[in-house]
Each structure stands twice: as C-alpha cells, then as structure tokens.
C-alpha cells in the first residue's frame, strides 16, 4: 500500500477513457465484421481491464511483488480458460464417438 495520494484528475481521465472505450465497443459491434466482431470486442475489453487494473487498482505504482501476484492470477485464469475451451471447442471432432 502506497501513501502517496493519486489526484482526482488521473481517476477522471481513466474514467473518461473507459467511457470512450465502452462507446467504441458498442459502435464496433454494430458493424458486420464476422468473427472479427468477437476479436474486436475482446481486444477492447482487455484494454479496459488493463486500465482498471493499472489506474483504479493502482498496480501501475505497486511493488514488483504485487505485480508478480497480479500476473500469477491472470496466468492461472488463462490456464483455466485454455482447459475449458480445449474441451468445449474440440467436442464432436472425433467421428463416431457421440459421447465425446
């Protein structure tokens, strides 16, 4: 925990950036881009998530240990998602095995 106070201006700017990105993600979803709609929406979501973690959760100015733990959490989440999707996306790949 850091005792240095973050100015309201920084939070206001981060909030405005998040609002702008929300409007962008809605606008992009109106376009017909095929599977790029999903990629664009998730890319914008990752950018927004990074803004929240860096500015609102103040990982930006945190110690290396906090950053390591934040990264470890994300890595664990990635492992969970990879195993979830490796099951979900590969269903029905083997012909004749209906229960797979």
């Amino acid at each position, binding site marked *: *925990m850091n*005792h240095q106070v973050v100015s309201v201006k920084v939070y206001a700017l981060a909030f405005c950036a998040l609002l702008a990105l*929300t409007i962008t*993600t*809605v606008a992009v*979803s*109106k376009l*017909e881009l095929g599977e790029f*709609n*999903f990629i664009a*929406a*998730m890319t*914008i*979501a990752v950018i*927004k*998530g990074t803004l*929240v*973690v860096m500015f*609102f*959760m103040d990982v930006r100015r945190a110690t290396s240990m906090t950053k390591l733990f934040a990264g470890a959490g994300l890595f664990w989440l990635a492992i969970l998602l990879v195993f979830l999707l490796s099951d979900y996306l590969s269903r029905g790949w083997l012909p004749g095995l209906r229960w797979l």
Partner: protein
Amino acid sequence: MTGMHAVHMIVGAGLLTALIVMAARTRFSAAWYTPVEMIGLYWHFVDIVWIFLFPLLYLIGHTR
C-alpha cells in the same frame, strides 16, 4: 453468469454502504484506511468482470 454477477454486486453494495457509514463517522485517517483499499479492490474486480461480461452477453451474437 448474470446471477453470479448480481450476487457479487449485492455484496459489493453492502460493503460500500458500510464504507460510507464508516467514512461519515470519520473512522479513516492517513494512518489507517485498509478497508477502503480492500473494498476498492473488490469493487474494481467486479467491474473487470462486467467489462468482459457486457460485450459477451449483449454485443456478441446480437447484431441486427
């Protein structure tokens, strides 16, 4: 997913209410503000979940 998120939101609203009451009673100072940090982190975690849920639930596959 929306239900789980709603439960997190309700818990967060309760925590924030407690935080407002504590702040009004001037329980916090520069020397001690741990609950503000902790509840803030929790609330932003719920925020991040919504950042991903919103496009997944309302934008993907809802074109037209």
